[in-house]
């Protein structure tokens, strides 16, 4: 395309190979990109609909045939623009960036809240390929908001557990409450979470109390994605480069921010309210 060899930090323009509805106001965008197809679960890409703003999105699948996808839920202007795309439309891509999850232990618990299932579903698939059997809590506000349920059921069978806030499916209540229950009943030796920050902070507290190592994928406003601009900083870390996945020790080091405050684009701190 240009004189550049494909490097993660350069922008590639790709046509969407498929757009699939995954839940209410939620689609997955599929594209073919060599670098993304080799990414690790938990890594993210900067996705640009040329009509709107470029935004960070976790990779939700990385396939052997070279295709990958991101999961997009309409929450604002940029995500609405992405959800409006059709097969054949072009997007700009930078990445994959960030560290991804590190699999360890033999009895993993995965807790996904809402679109937090995006990086955790390929993580569960990777675990399964390594002969690990994770317990997976898939949470959402209601049944029609659950994503990747079919894909996870096929993979995990009865180890997929559903939680909905309104009780329309599975456990009635927050995914974090369900996770705390499970952790009280059974000994897990590693926990992997992604979802609303308050949910993650609640599970973090639980895991620390029980001395179970945890990894959480944080979301912050990201601009450069390569560790230069500093707008995504949390404590001494840059979410774009040192994260987005942080472990227990790192999360303990940023306890005064995690689940409490984040920076808005100007660099002013605002309260984390979900």
């Amino acid at each position, binding site marked *: 395309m240009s004189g550049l060899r494909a490097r993660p930090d350069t922008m590639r323009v790709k046509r969407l190979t498929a757009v699939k509805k995954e839940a209410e106001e939620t689609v997955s965008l599929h594209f073919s990109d060599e670098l993304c197809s080799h990414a690790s679960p938990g890594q993210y890409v900067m996705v640009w609909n040329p009509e709107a703003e470029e935004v960070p999105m976790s990779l939700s699948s990385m396939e052997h045939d070279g295709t990958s996808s991101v999961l997009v839920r309409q929450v604002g202007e940029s995500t609405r623009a992405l959800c409006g795309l059709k097969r054949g439309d072009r997007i700009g891509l930078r990445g994959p960036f960030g560290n991804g999850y590190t699999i360890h232990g033999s009895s993993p618990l995965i807790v996904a809240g809402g679109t937090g299932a995006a990086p955790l579903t390929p993580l569960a698939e990777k675990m399964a390929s390594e002969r690990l059997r994770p317990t997976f809590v898939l949470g959402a506000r209601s049944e029609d908001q659950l994503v990747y349920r079919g894909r996870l059921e096929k993979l995990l069978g009865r180890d997929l557990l559903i939680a909905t806030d309104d009780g329309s499916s599975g456990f009635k209540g927050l995914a974090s409450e369900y996770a705390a229950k499970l952790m009280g009943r059974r000994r897990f030796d590693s926990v992997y979470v992604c979802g609303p920050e308050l949910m993650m902070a609640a599970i973090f507290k639980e895991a620390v109390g029980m001395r179970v190592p945890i990894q959480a994928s944080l979301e912050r406003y990201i601009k*450069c994605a390569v*560790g*230069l601009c500093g707008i995504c900083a949390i404590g001494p870390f840059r979410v774009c480069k040192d994260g987005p996945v942080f472990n227990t020790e790192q999360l303990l080091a940023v306890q005064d921010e995690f689940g409490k405050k984040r920076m808005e684009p100007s*660099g002013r701190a605002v309260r984390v309210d979900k």
Partner: protein
Amino acid sequence: MTKSLGPVPRGGHRNPTFISVEGGALNAMGLPNPGAEYFVESIKELRREKTPVVASFFGSSIDEFGEVAGILSDAGADALELNCSCPNVEGEMGMLGVDPSNTERATSAVKEVAKPPVFVKLSPNVTDISEIARAAERGGADAITAVNTLKGMAVDAYLRRPVLSNITGGLSGPALKPVALRCVWEIAEAVEIPIIGCGGVSSWRDAVEFMLCGATAVEVGTAVMERGFEVFGEVVEGIRDYLEENGFRGVRDVVGLAREA
């Protein structure tokens, strides 16, 4: 070295604001910052931890430059860097640093209120950079930082449109180095005050090249992308080894040496 602070909070331009290009990076962040007043606490905290702070700042008028400089000076910054050369907000606030008399006036306004040394960071996007450097020196600058990013742009062949939301951005990284070296060379010819070289410093060797052209110190930015924060230590160690290996007693022995060749 802080990001550039202004009188009021700014969210900056919308993404895409950054892309890698051949030999470097293009950015048009658009001076996002929480406002100088808001940042005062952070400066004080850094000072308590004994971290030297160079506060970079900007304004949209001569008065604003003075106002922001006063806030940062009172906060206890060890030095101020007057950024009158950001290429990404030209439409909004003009680029003061392309005009010698404005550069001189802004510098004197800042010098009037600032207690610590004031560096003036210059733009390479000018016809004659030595003229601007002389203006900053007349205004009372304690040092010149050269240079800020070079104005550029990227267009995608398939999207058939500019990539950065701001259309143009600032080029940094290795591709900027030859331009920056030339600027330092010309400024060294024109002024007596020290020069801080920057623009593509990724290694000790780049740093030494800047010093040979007349820089007393260097700044490192874009190299963090590929080499991480370790790059700062690597550059310092490398300079030390170079000096020792070649029998120099210190950086001063090297500054401007290429000019004598």
